[in-house]
């Protein structure tokens, strides 16, 4: 059963509760339970963190390469260039998130007005 496969009003909420709330808070509760019991440097936790990081990074890649809405009508080269230069600005500025975000956004909007 997918999100839109039922006509009932409550199905999407149940979907969010199961696939959203339960799927995230199980880790938060487990974190409280284990808090201080497990070493943060254990190898298992390193693997867990790299998998989780790669998954979220895949989300980032998809949002840039296969976006939805208005962003889908911009060119792929422009999106990748804006994101890459924004990320470079973030690194060069000493990991200032604002620098990265502002540079990427300005490049994207400038590119749209120049019809790149």
């Amino acid at each position, binding site marked *: 059963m997918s999100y839109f496969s039922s006509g009932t009003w409550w199905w999407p909420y149940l979907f969010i509760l199961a696939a959203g709330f339960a799927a995230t808070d199980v880790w938060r509760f487990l974190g409280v339970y284990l808090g201080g019991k497990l070493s943060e440097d254990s190898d298992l936790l390193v693997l867990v963190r790299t998998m989780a990081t*790669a998954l979220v990074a895949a989300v980032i890649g998809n949002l840039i390469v296969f976006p939805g*809405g208005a962003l889908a009508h911009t060119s792929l080269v422009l999106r990748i260039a804006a994101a890459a230069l924004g990320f470079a600005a973030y690194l060069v500025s000493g990991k200032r998130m604002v620098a990265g975000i502002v540079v990427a956004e300005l490049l994207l909007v400038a590119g749209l007005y120049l019809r790149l």
Partner: protein
Amino acid sequence: MSTSISDTTLPRSIWFLRGVRAAFSLPGLILVSSFVGFAALAKDAGVTVAQAAFMTGIVWALPSMVVLVGAIVSGVALPAAMFAVTLSAIRLMPMVMALVPEMRADRTRPWVLYLLSHFVAVTSWVLAMERLKHIPRDKRTIFYAGLGGMLVTANIIVVVTFYAVADALPFAISAALLMLTPMYFLTSLWGSARERAGHMAMAFGVGLGPLFHVLLPQFDLLAAGLVGGTAAYGWHLWRRRVHAA
């Protein structure tokens, strides 16, 4: 904010309000901007405004919410969506594990910690790890309740507001809003990585996500997470052996 002797005698409500005030910060502003992008994303996916607001409050982890909306868009069944979101949310566990010893006082009841753990996500975690050490220990939970509660409330309002106006915005603004989320994740994820393997995992994931999106459309995120994460972990082990030798 520094702690003085008189601070420890202040009533709890003052510490709650100080937590609320701590939400008004640069990370808080960036988070709000990203939720503006999320409102556009959710609307685009066909999620109603009430469902988007519900999702914001009940899930409260933007990367997991974006994964959930991605699963909704690709029309996967509930178990597959649940699995993908579960995997995306694993990183919350070590974050909570790191925060609990900071927040707990001698007389803190466990249910308070379980309740407050729901507020843990990148932004509130970064702010809490930075501020809590300046708060008297027995006032830390109430401070975090104010901080987390304010962030959740503000962003539910943001989602509802921008969902309503998303269609009326000019094209360039809509495109720019949708670009906020990946840039926020890209920079915050890089900054919060604990070890070099995390940066390797990011590089693998960014590349593998779009690749698997073409090869395995239904399992792109899972495949990228498992393959990219294992590769980064392998690199981590290999590097440690090289350093040890």
